[in-house]
């Protein structure tokens, strides 16, 4: 037994050393924490005192939240989150990013796994039953990706005849939207868990089009020059909001104030230009925040 205990101590020591080594090579510092004064008992005060925050975002969405080789998620959503966290007086390197896929976003907020979520999160009424949204901070829209030489599909109405097949991602809002345009879901709609599989089905000819938010499709158009194109204009409006707890009105107004400030001082536009803007997507004018 004594030997075992020694082994445990040695392992613990090795782990501590390893952790120290990992922590040592920090290059980017997000500024220092500042004690700001917020209303007593508010979420902002609590977070500022703790000097730590958990933010939910996507890890697989190019341009918005993509965790690459750097090990940190990068994208527009991440930059927006940083703007808010800075305003809370917390250095951005204190943010712990948590992956919140579409499926678990509401549950992550309700169960206190994260403090807020910025994850291409479309504001809708069904979701508002369980959580609340600040923002919107961006307005995307659904569009259709087709092969560059395809002239038969010019908009969602092309699916009404029943002979064109379309692919989207399972459980996404665009997948639900397109259901209202197709004649028969069983024969026309394919859903995969990632967009890459949809693109491969498009290449293989199993489907004629891929549909989702324009910014995501533009990423594929940009990556494969001349191979694909967007068919027509956006046919829905997808306002992206920031998810917070349903009863935390103060925190929501604080985020809304921060967004409005970021619209004015240009940090919102800069965040876009550094990330999703590189795909050639239009930022448009700043969407008015909705204080409901």
């Amino acid at each position, binding site marked *: 037994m004594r030997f075992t205990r020694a082994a445990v101590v040695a392992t613990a020591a090795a782990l501590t050393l390893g952790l120290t080594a990992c922590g040592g090579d920090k290059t980017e510092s997000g500024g220092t924490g500042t004690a700001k004064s917020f209303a007593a008992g508010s979420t902002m005060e609590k977070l500022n005192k703790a000097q730590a925050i958990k933010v939910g975002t996507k890890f697989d969405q190019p341009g918005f939240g993509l965790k690459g080789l750097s090990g940190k998620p990068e994208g527009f959503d991440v930059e927006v989150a940083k703007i808010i966290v800075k305003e809370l007086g917390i250095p951005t390197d204190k943010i712990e990013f948590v992956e919140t*896929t*579409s*499926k*678990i*976003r*509401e*549950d992550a907020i309700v169960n206190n796994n994260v403090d807020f979520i910025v994850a291409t999160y479309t504001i*809708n009424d*069904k*979701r508002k*039953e*369980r959580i609340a949204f600040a923002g919107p901070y961006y307005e995307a829209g659904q569009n259709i990706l087709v092969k560059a030489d395809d002239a038969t599909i010019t908009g969602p109405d092309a699916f009404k005849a029943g*002979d064109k*097949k379309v*692919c989207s991602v*399972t*459980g*996404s*809002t665009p*997948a*639900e939207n397109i259901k209202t345009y197709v004649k028969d*879901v*069983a*024969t*026309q*709609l*394919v*859903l*995969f*868990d990632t967009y890459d*599989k949809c693109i*491969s*089905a498009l290449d*293989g*000819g*199993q*489907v004629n089009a891929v549909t989702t938010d324009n910014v995501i499709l533009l990423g594929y158009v940009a990556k494969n020059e001349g191979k694909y194109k967007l068919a027509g204009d956006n046919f829905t409006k997808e306002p992206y909001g920031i998810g917070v707890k349903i009863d935390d009105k103060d925190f929501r107004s604080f985020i809304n104030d921060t967004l409005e400030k970021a619209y004015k001082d240009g940090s919102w536009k800069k965040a876009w230009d550094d990330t999703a803007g590189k795909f050639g997507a239009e930022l448009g004018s700043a969407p008015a925040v909705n204080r409901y």
Partner: protein
Amino acid sequence: MSVWVDKFDVFAGGFWLTLQICVLAAIGALVLGAVVAVLRISPVPPLRALGTAYVTIFRNMPLTVVMFFSAFALPALGSNADFLRIPGLELVFTRLGTDLPYFRFALIALTLYTAAFVCEALRAGINAVSPGQAEAARSLGLTFTQNLRYVVLPQSWKASIVPLGSVIIAMIKNSALIGFFGVVGDLSQSADQLTSAEGYAFIPVAIGISIGYLIMTVPLGALLDRIERRQAVAAR
């Protein structure tokens, strides 16, 4: 829990589609598995090698990978699995005949994968028949086919039926993967749709689809228990 009432049609539709693919894949796997089992015990070495190779490949490969090959390699080879558009059958199992091939791809993958396990369950049953039976049949002048048909298989069936049932139950649960390979509207994919697109809480939805799977698997398990009890009596 209101999701069970509000979205009953989604659950029911998912149940129906999962049931369809399970019935078809079970039939396919039982037939193919029997053929492979015969290959594996055949007296001709090349056929035996073929059977063994089949089982080695499909029993040792993850089902997800088989699904990948089926859904993405078949199209690359220029096949949309149109041979499965069997006239008559597609009237009952409507998804078989659609222009979208993913139901057929998923069916192929489930069948190929499960057949390897069916083969082994059957072979275990055959091995349980005492060798004296087959030797006696051979000494009476029965051919290999007659030997199997009249002496070995009728006896082995009794020993195989329970493991076969477990294989089919496993297959029903494995069918939850098809929703990730382009099949829209089966039980597990419906859960995905309800939770992420429509924002229902995850746990009630998960309980709902679990009930769907249980409706298929529990009666099957009960049936197997009954058969097992009857066999125990017969064996005495």
